């Protein structure tokens, strides 16, 4: 199967083009903060609770808040039914998500507390870890958690020898490499960087630059979504 034809990808995008993204802040009433995100074929709901007292006590840190992220894929989110419950992959993503978010949250303001971040993948089409972090960041801001910045994530990769932005399902499976990146957009500090597949050093630099460009675009959408929630009433 040809993944790139006449400079266009299988869904008609240019190599440096993102999939369409829709972000909604605060759709859940009972969560302290929430976000619904549609990113190409991905549909993700993120909900944040806290800060609240960490229970059981032995997980408490007397100097800062603990970030407890939980990434979960719904059993119906992929083509073959996903066996429900945490597996090796989702545990890894939960851990790296918590670590990425920890670096922007002012955790030292809430000693002994925990902030729960739930990321539920309802529909998956590659790039869910990036979409999850992007959604969680909006949910955290919506929950009024003090942060240095609103983190954002985006992936780049290599398909048919061409460096491309934001891989979709088939490109991820049949492509050559995948490079998810999360940054704090103000300083462009890298919060997460993973890679699988093979790229030369030059290709890596190109892919990283492309992923950063994607992050900058998505960051604008996140900010618009947050401001929109609080502006809708103002106009009435």
């Amino acid at each position, binding site marked *: 199967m040809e993944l790139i034809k006449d400079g266009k990808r299988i869904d008609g995008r240019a190599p440096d083009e993102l999939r369409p993204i829709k972000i909604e802040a605060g759709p859940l009433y009972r969560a302290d903060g929430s976000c619904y995100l549609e990113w190409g074929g991905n549909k993700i709901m993120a909900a944040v609770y806290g800060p609240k007292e960490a229970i059981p006590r032995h997980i408490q840190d007397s100097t800062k808040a603990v970030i407890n992220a939980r990434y979960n894929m719904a059993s119906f989110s992929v083509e073959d039914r996903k066996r429900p419950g945490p597996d090796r992959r989702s545990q890894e993503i939960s851990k790296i998500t918590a670590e990425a978010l920890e670096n922007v949250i002012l955790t030292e303001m809430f000693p002994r507390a925990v902030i729960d971040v739930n990321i539920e993948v309802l529909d998956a089409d590659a790039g869910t870890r990036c979409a999850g972090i992007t959604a969680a960041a909006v949910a955290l801001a919506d*929950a009024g958690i003090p942060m240095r910045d*609103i983190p954002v994530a985006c992936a780049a990769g290599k398909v048919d020898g061409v460096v491309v932005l934001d891989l979709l399902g088939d490109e991820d499976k049949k492509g050559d490499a995948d490079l998810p990146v999360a940054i704090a957009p103000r300083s462009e500090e890298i919060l997460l960087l993973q890679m699988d597949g093979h790229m030369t050093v030059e290709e890596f630099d190109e892919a990283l630059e492309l992923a950063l460009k994607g992050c900058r675009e998505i960051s604008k959408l996140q900010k618009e979504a947050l401001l929109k929630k609080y502006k809708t009433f103002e106009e009435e």
Partner: protein
Amino acid sequence: MERKIVIPGTLLGKADTGKQGRGTFREGDNIYSSRLGIVEERSGYINVIPLSGVYDPAVGDAVIGVIEEASKMSWMVDIKAPYPAMLRVEEVPWRVEFGETARFLNTGEVIVANVSSINEAKNIEISMRDKHCRKVEDGIIVEIQPSKVPRVIGKNGSMVSLLRQRTGCWIFVGQNGRVWIRGEDDKMALLVEAIKKIEKEAHTTGLTDKISKFLGNENESD
């Protein structure tokens, strides 16, 4: 007055033009917002008043708490903060013998108290020594988001006065987002609706007028 909504990481100003207030942080010479909220400049400080989030207790706040646990010499009270607050037997208006705490205040009962101290480890203590502090024995408690409390109170208490006047109910607003109301049943039902409306539309302008209209129309229809 222009009400500017900011999000975490928004540049608010330089350190030489204003001091770093609540809801902000400093990086080098710049002051940034750390929360989603409205910018306010007061006596040289740049503050961000949050539009969301859990209750952040401050010394002197009047709060409404629910007793979680009665121990021999103290109670643990839920004040909707990230941490439970401690109420010692010396801080209540009654003489409580050792081990008799549950006879005065038992699990699930509601009190009005003041936040008396918070230390760096965020251990919170509350006191019932002030004269407005008491046990809540009648009426109902309405829960709202703590960030919306200033709107329910209004400028110099204008909103509370309006609510009191129009419904004839007795109202006490705890800083932690619990509102205690007492009055006739149908008036309380109307008041609860009005409070929920304030909570929902807290960030809009002309809120007092809207609520006045809301309460006015309801009165005419009965």
